[in-house]
């Protein structure tokens, strides 16, 4: 009978907290959006599923060995942990607090104590350590994205890089927004938090995850969910802004066909970009370095088998682990916070401002170029959200003029936006990292 009691008291239904229940619903919601509404399913299916796993009561999949040890709270283990952490109270909350604030060596010692007591890191926590805390997963995704990116349209019209620059204003405006929310006392974000939230406006998943894992890992779940959700919502978010800021005449502008770009230019571009990064912003070197490496593998034509693997088997494997790891940060105690609402709000503002700035920049460039050569609709593609934003530009162009195919023209600012937000990420890491 005692065993039966053990089973019962250790069951999920006996232990589930309201927060966990709610987070499981959110996980199911993400799965619904991904599967039924096609919201960036490659990331949101693993993130949603990981979120459910992370909130299974008593399973501790998203917790470290020490957190699991504290959860089960055997007095002698708590006592040892308290002495390792050099605090007098053996209260679980105090121990967790001291543990999260402790230095690397104390961390390591506490972890060994928990292991000696028979506790181990949860599966998702291990995935998080290997994939995200080490920084490797977003970088490998970036390598794969590089190997999938064709810079041809950008090279045919390098000036579209300015559109990719302008659209990053969404990032920095959002930083100010987060600062304002803090100064008015509505939320409480540090400058690191603000920078990580801002990067949502980069509309680039791996960049957002990379920056957040460095600057504000505790916000990772909310920021990643916001970034991918809004990327999926680009076809809803962008059109009204684009329509409001352009005239029908502007939207009708047909752009001249892009010139042919030679193989050599495509090979040299990632190298030129890399050297510029090396000379100007070393902090962007991991992100843009891996991106350039992937692109060079793609274009050089002599390592096709590596390029194929980078954009298939490897990126798929990494995506699975990255998604589950992000999901591990959807545990109730981390996600169900008023901060999350702030992040969701600021994120959509970031997308909106970025879109608007891209369009306005394109209008300005069009004016300067005589008023009839650049369709301002391609400016919104500068936020990145590849290739969704470019498709939105194309769609709106076709609405105004059924012969107006903007897709290739919008691909230039689209990939420029990836570079732009990686540069912005480097600046953030430099200044507040």
């Amino acid at each position, binding site marked *: 009978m005692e065993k039966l009691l053990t089973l019962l008291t250790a069951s999920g239904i006996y232990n589930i907290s309201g927060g966990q229940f709610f987070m499981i619903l959110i996980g199911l919601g993400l799965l619904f959006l991904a599967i039924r509404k096609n919201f960036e399913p490659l990331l949101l299916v693993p993130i949603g599923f990981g979120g459910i796993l992370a909130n299974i009561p008593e399973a501790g999949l998203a917790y470290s060995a020490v957190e699991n040890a504290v959860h089960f709270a055997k007095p002698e283990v708590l006592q040892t942990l308290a002495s390792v952490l050099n605090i007098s109270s053996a209260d679980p909350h105090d121990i967790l607090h001291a543990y999260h604030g402790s230095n690397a060596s104390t961390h390591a010692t506490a972890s060994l104590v928990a292991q000696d007591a028979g506790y181990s890191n949860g599966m998702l926590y291990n995935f998080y350590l290997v994939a995200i805390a080490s920084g490797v997963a977003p970088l490998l995704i970036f390598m794969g994205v590089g190997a999938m990116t064709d810079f041809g349209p950008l090279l045919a019209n390098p000036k579209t890089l300015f559109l990719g620059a302008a659209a990053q204003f969404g990032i*920095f405006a959002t930083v100010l927004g987060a600062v304002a929310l803090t100064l008015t006392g509505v939320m409480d974000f540090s400058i690191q938090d603000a920078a990580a939230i801002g990067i949502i406006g980069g509309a680039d998943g791996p960049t957002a995850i990379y920056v957040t894992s460095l600057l504000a890992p505790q916000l990772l779940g909310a920021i990643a969910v916001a970034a991918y959700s809004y990327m999926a919502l680009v076809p809803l978010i962008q059109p009204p802004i684009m329509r409001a800021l352009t005239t029908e005449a502007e939207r009708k502008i047909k752009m001249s066909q892009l010139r042919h770009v030679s193989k050599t230019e495509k090979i040299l571009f990632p190298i030129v*970009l890399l050297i510029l990064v090396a000379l100007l*912003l070393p902090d962007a070197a991991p992100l843009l370095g891996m991106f350039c490496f992937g692109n060079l593998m793609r274009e050089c034509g002599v390592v096709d088998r590596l390029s194929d693997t980078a954009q298939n088997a490897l990126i798929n494997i990494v995506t699975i682990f990255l998604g589950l790891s992000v999901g591990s940060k959807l545990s109730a105690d981390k996600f169900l916070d008023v901060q999350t609402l702030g992040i969701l709000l600021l994120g959509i503002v970031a997308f909106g401002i970025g879109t608007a700035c891209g369009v306005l920049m394109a209008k300005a460039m069009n004016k300067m170029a005589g008023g009839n050569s650049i369709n301002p609709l391609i400016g919104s593609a500068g936020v990145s959200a590849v290739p969704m934003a470019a498709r939105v530009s194309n769609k709106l162009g076709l609405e105004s003029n059924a012969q107006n195919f903007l897709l290739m023209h919008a691909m230039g600012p689209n990939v420029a936006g990836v570079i732009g937000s990686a540069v912005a990420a480097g600046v953030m890491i430099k200044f507040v990292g």
Partner: protein
Amino acid sequence: MDNLLSEGLSLMVFGMGFVFVFLTLLVIATGLMSKVVTKYAPAPEPKPARKTARQAEPTGAATAKNDELVAVITAAVHKYRSH
């Protein structure tokens, strides 16, 4: 508090400024590179670039092509058998 505001403001000014400076330099460097390449190593007539296209193709498209292939073959074979 004021500190946070000034940090945020300077992050915006310098961050946005740096992004523009960087991408401007990239525009210049890219333009220069393209000019040099076109001058000293003019590209041959644009090949259909079949291979690159294939690589960039999303999986979905590949599957679609495969299906087309099967459809085409089935048709060809039916024709062949009906002779």
